[in-house]
């Protein structure tokens, strides 16, 4: 029995290392450890100013429109063909997102980027980024009634959401967000753990 526990222990340690230690970059570890919350409005606002530049970049903004048609391209023009959000955010009728957007990026420029979970926010919680000031967006982000019912811990974990990550793997011909995912995640977690303060404007 002791031998069984020993073997299991070694296996679990190895699996744990594979999951958190070897395959993931260092910044990912913070997601899984308990964050330390310590209010600091100056550091928080400063971190959000960085976060805001990412959220307002085309890779994030394009799927957070004020209307029901997403944007496309680095100039955030209306998506050609005018696909609509639909109730669940996955399109309507013969124009579902996944009809063109595959589980992975399609090779070549001007081809659909892909993700297994490609969608817009749903109709009952549009999570609009378009036109939002830093203050408005910060307040929206921490409001469970506007952020997909996420608490602070879930918000922190959202930095590693598959669709968020796809912003840094957007296929050929598209400009990346203005900082690395690691830098974004660091700013995001700093903003939240220092109190998620909203800028004055």
């Amino acid at each position, binding site marked *: 029995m002791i031998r069984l526990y020993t073997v299991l222990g070694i296996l679990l340690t190895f699996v744990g290392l594979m999951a958190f230690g070897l395959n993931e970059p260092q910044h990912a570890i913070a997601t899984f450890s308990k964050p330390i919350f310590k209010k600091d409005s100056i550091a928080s606002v400063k971190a959000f100013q960085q976060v805001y530049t990412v959220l307002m970049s085309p890779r994030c903004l394009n799927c957070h429109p004020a209307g029901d048609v997403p944007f496309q391209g680095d100039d955030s023009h209306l998506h050609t*063909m005018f696909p609509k959000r639909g109730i669940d955010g996955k399109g*309507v*009728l013969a124009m*579902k997102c*996944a*009809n*063109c957007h595959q589980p992975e990026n399609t090779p070549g420029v001007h081809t659909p980027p892909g993700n297994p979970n490609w969608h817009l926010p749903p109709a009952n919680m549009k999570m609009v980024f378009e036109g939002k000031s830093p203050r408005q967006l910060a307040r929206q982000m921490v409001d469970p009634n506007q952020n997909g019912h996420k608490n602070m811990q879930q918000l922190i974990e959202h930095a590693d959401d598959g669709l968020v990550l796809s912003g840094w793997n957007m296929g050929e011909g598209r400009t990346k967000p203005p900082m690395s995912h690691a830098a974004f995640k660091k700013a995001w977690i700093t903003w939240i753990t220092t109190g998620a303060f909203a800028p004055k404007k």
Partner: protein
Amino acid sequence: MVSLQINKKSYSIDADPEMPLLWAIRDLAGLTGTKFGCGVAQCGACVIHLNGEAVRSCVTKVKRAIGQQITTIEGLSANNDHPLQLAWNEENVPQCGYCHSGQLMSAAVLLREKPNPTDAEIDDAMAGNICRCGTYPRIRKAIHLAAEMQRKETAK
């Protein structure tokens, strides 16, 4: 070899799983009703149904379709008698005809979901299917006619 279910028939074909499904359907299964238009999911000529959804086969890889139900224009009806096909004939919709298998496959999803579609719903469903000949007014008219035929058939 991969096995694909196309129009309720099993095809065993020698296809790379990364190959566009359109190539497999046209060149390996020999079903040439589905057309190549742009190759980048921009025009809708290659629309087929994958588990009932109007998927663009030019950007859909074979591996996504393995074990799934594929329907092409050849399988839309048994005798070319889907209400949309009848209405397309009745209204003489096509001009050159190249885009129309894709148009019909998209319209079939619309009519299944909205048996009595409004003009706005037709726009929402059909906006991704381009027709260089500009047959859009006849497409709209034929969809309304097909909806009417479908309703009458259901009422019988």
